[in-house]
């Protein structure tokens, strides 16, 4: 670690992992409610568990992105952060606001929460992923602005690299697109139309810039490949992201009242959205194969490669599966959507945050470059348990989804929704069991921070040429 102010990343990473645990626990609650409908009813209805699960996910990923930025930017800009104090203050504000919001979900009926927070003045609540009270949303905007000022001023007054500029564009885009969460017209079609400007243009737009930039940073550091080469890849990847992903928004405009031409625009452009994800995989493997040195943090390299592969599978392959309008006509809003949502979010955004944590945390905790061998082995067990679990969760949900589509939408005597759900119980049980394995993987991952702390750092293995790699 070259700059003192990089230290502020640490609390962000710790909070991210803590909230991740909460996210998974509520995932398991919902998974059980899928098969035991009365579980925790009416104390924690499904919709409450769901908003806790998805909002914790978004919030911890945001903590992860901010931590990543605070770690990465000083090294790229070759100067200290403009204001580490502001960064710490924002950390506490964001954490407290987030915690209060989650407690509000859990302990106050949602409609009372809406009343208490004056939702009727500027109604923004009660839409998927945007369940937060309006004041929480305003708080998010304030934190985002302070954060952008801090890293923006650092980047612009220091060395400007492609990595940090792309990160800045991505983060600024994240904040700008979030503003559409304040637009909630009575017209349902328009509400839905602009809702996707937040959700789609985040995960298939600006967040991919953040993803690409963090991946490029970690690859530069761990492989020693020339920055020029890596940054060229980065630009090509994010160019493809926005060229395909912006018009690709149309894959959500098939059936919500928008004009029929979106079937063409949406299908054609979103069918090309896997390209940048595929390039990310090729990029990661290429750079690691061409590495100039072996980095002692093998776990971080594993996470980086895993991000490439899993993002391509979850977003690219599982996204393509249901993105063409004639297919989406049948799969829209089924367990197939849920299957894709899980693998894409995990493969792209969970994994890139864990990649950055894996790379940075040893230094933040006073190591030279890497954890001990034992700690890394445990971390890699966590990697495999979580990753294999999410693959199986995705496969079980896909199977459930295919059956659901057939029984409810394609067979000669379409069955009612709830009747079909009963028939899918086996797959939901398998998903829940796999979810428990995921949680075990997460516990193992966390344990890796506590084992082998007193053992010496892992040392560098022989250079690639000598090892014959």
């Amino acid at each position: 670690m070259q700059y003192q102010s990089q230290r502020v990343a640490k609390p962000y990473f710790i909070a991210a992992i803590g909230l991740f645990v909460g996210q998974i626990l509520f995932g398991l609650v919902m998974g059980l409610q899928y098969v035991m409908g009365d579980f925790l009813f009416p104390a924690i209805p499904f919709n409450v568990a769901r908003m806790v699960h998805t909002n914790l996910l978004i919030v911890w990923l945001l903590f992860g992105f901010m931590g990543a930025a605070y770690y990465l930017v000083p090294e790229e800009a070759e100067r200290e952060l403009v204001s580490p104090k502001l960064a710490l203050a924002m950390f506490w504000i964001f954490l407290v606001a987030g915690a209060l919001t989650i407690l509000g979900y859990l302990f106050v009926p949602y409609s009372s929460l809406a009343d208490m927070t004056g939702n009727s003045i500027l109604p923004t609540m009660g839409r998927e992923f945007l369940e937060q009270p309006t004041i929480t949303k305003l708080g998010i905007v304030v934190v985002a602005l302070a954060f952008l000022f801090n890293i923006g001023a650092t980047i612009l007054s220091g060395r400007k690299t492609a990595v940090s500029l792309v990160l800045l564009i991505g983060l600024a885009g994240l904040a700008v697109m979030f503003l559409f969460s304040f637009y909630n017209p009575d017209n349902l079609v328009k509400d839905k139309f602009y809702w996707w400007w937040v959700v789609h243009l985040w995960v298939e737009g600006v967040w991919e810039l953040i993803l690409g930039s963090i991946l490029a940073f970690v690859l530069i550091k761990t492989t020693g490949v020339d920055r020029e080469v890596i940054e060229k890849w980065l630009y090509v990847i994010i160019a493809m992201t926005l060229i395909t992903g912006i018009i690709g928004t149309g894959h959500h405009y098939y059936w919500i009242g928008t004009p029929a031409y979106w079937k063409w625009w949406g299908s054609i452009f979103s069918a090309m959205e896997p390209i940048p994800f595929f390039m990310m995989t090729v990029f990661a493997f290429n750079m690691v194969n061409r590495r100039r040195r072996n980095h002692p943090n093998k776990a971080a390299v594993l996470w980086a490669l895993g991000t490439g592969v899993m993002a391509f599978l979850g977003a690219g392959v599982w996204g393509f599966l249901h993105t063409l309008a004639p297919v989406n006509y049948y799969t829209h809003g089924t367990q197939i959507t849920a299957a894709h949502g899980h693998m894409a979010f995990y493969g792209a955004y969970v994994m890139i945050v864990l990649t950055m944590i894996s790379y940075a945390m040893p230094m933040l905790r006073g190591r030279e470059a890497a954890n001990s061998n034992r700690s890394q082995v445990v971390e890699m067990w966590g990697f495999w348990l979580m990753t294999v679990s999410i693959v199986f969760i995705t496969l079980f949900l896909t199977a459930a989804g295919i059956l659901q589509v057939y029984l409810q939408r394609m067979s000669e005597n379409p069955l009612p929704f709830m009747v079909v759900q009963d028939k899918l119980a086996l797959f939901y049980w398998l998903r829940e069991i796999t979810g428990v394995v995921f949680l075990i993987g997460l516990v193992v991952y966390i344990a890796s921070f506590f084992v082998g702390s007193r053992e010496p750092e892992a040392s560098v293995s022989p250079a690639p040429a000598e090892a014959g790699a």
Partner: protein
Amino acid sequence: MSQAFTKAMARNIFYGGSLFFILLFLALTFDTDSTLPSRDNHAAITEKVAMGKALWEKNDCIGCHTLLGEGAYFAPELGNVYKRFGSTDAIKAFIKGRPKNGIPGRRSMPQFNFTDEELDAIAAFLKYASEINTNNWPPNIQG
């Protein structure tokens, strides 16, 4: 990637390509906005319907149900529930009749204790939603 293809070229493709597609997207948005009146059933958006939408949001119905295929997948699609149930009265009776403590062993919908006026509003909102032109989605009445 080949040497002849430089980082500056890649950067220009990023800026130029993004700008072009942002503008195209805005143009399509503009066109959508002007075509919507013929499809989005906005004439039906009365004060009652607007109140229904506010109640829909205030109680986070989307956290269990889908509406036009978007939302959660725990409970049935409601974009076409007006057509499935056949009347606003049937919708109101269903919502009103949910047992407070749920149905043992089964997925249950909460009892929201709506007033009659609120029930009217929610049913009106769902009727409005069912009359949006969705390119014939869902494939059948089961949603």
